[in-house]
């Protein structure tokens, strides 16, 4: 399978994935049940139980899991900064 990209930019160069606020997270795992991209991983008998295992599986600009979070424990990077960064990388690639 070819390297995953978003708008021609290698996915691993785009910092876009959920951040978990462990002070708020109550391990309800609604986000895990919701996300079809296996971004999260549940580690039974470990603390924290929930981690972001596959950040590059996260769909750039998707914040849907945060909407399933009853205690508002998930946040995402700033969209504008991410957009600027993507454009910058595209420019660098075009100049290569």
């Amino acid at each position, binding site marked *: 399978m070819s390297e995953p990209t978003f*708008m021609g930019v290698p996915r691993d160069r785009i910092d876009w994935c959920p951040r978990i606020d462990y002070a708020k997270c109550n391990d309800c795992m609604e986000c895990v049940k919701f996300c079809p991209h296996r971004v999260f991983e549940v580690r039974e008998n470990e603390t924290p139980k929930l981690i972001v295992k596959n950040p590059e599986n996260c769909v750039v*600009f*998707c914040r849907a899991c945060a909407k399933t979070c009853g205690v508002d424990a998930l946040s995402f990077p700033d969209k504008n900064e991410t957009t600027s960064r993507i454009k910058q990388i595209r420019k660098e690639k075009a100049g290569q």
Partner: protein
Amino acid sequence: MNSRNTYAVLPCNGMDKAAGAVTRQIALDLSVQTGSEIICPVLYRVADARYNRIAQEHPLLVLDGCGTRCASKLAVEKGLKVAKKLTVTEEAKKNAIPLADSLRGAELAASLRLDEAGLSLAKTIVADLLKAEGPEAADHQAPMAAPAQLEYETYQKDKFIFRLPKTGFFFSENDFWVLVSGNRARVGMTDFLQQSLSDIAFFNPPAVGAAIEQFGELGTIESAKAVLEVVSPVAGKVVAVNEALATSPELINQSPYEQGWLVELEMDDLETDRELLLDFAGYFPIMKRKVDEFQVK
């Protein structure tokens, strides 16, 4: 009594979060102030004839406490048409009223009683609901003319057929489309995206007049499977929303590129946004790859 604001109110009535208690309070206030009828979500699960009737007699107001959306899911399960819905945790943020919603250990019991903040939030939400149409209505413009007969390319996987208009549309890699006419843009979701979501139950549109960045949130879409943020393919000011979706959200499934359009914007700068948009030739292979990779249920 204001009959225009008489709802059938379906609160989640959640017992283990303060936000759930706020939905109950809102339902009680609306019942007293407007004669709205309350649907008990617990009884509804076991005896639905009475509540189905109520939900048909009045516009349905769904009150979710938190993002788990128990009340919305119940409405979808029962096949109800949702006229209006809100989520208390989002309203709390909007109104900067903190809720005592700590769900950890011993703090849980203390947080369940509706405190001053909770009562005040319920009061604010009820007042908003009873307000006449806001000033934003003045910004609302007539929608663009419907596109001419569209010509589609299709891609088939098993029994599923995915359509994509061949000309006139731009697409984002988030699977939304934009149709441009002058500085106006109409936005909707692609056939691929609507099929991945299955039956759409509700479109929660953005406020008319709101300024949205490219890839900013242009409302949300809810299906039985998921809540999805509408990721705006272009930046601009919201000038129209598809009013038909309030009563017929299924148009998004039935006609994603035409009757099921979502929002129209007055664009800020298409040239700048264009860099991160694709035309048919650019998006079609991406759509095919997504179809191949995803199990569409």
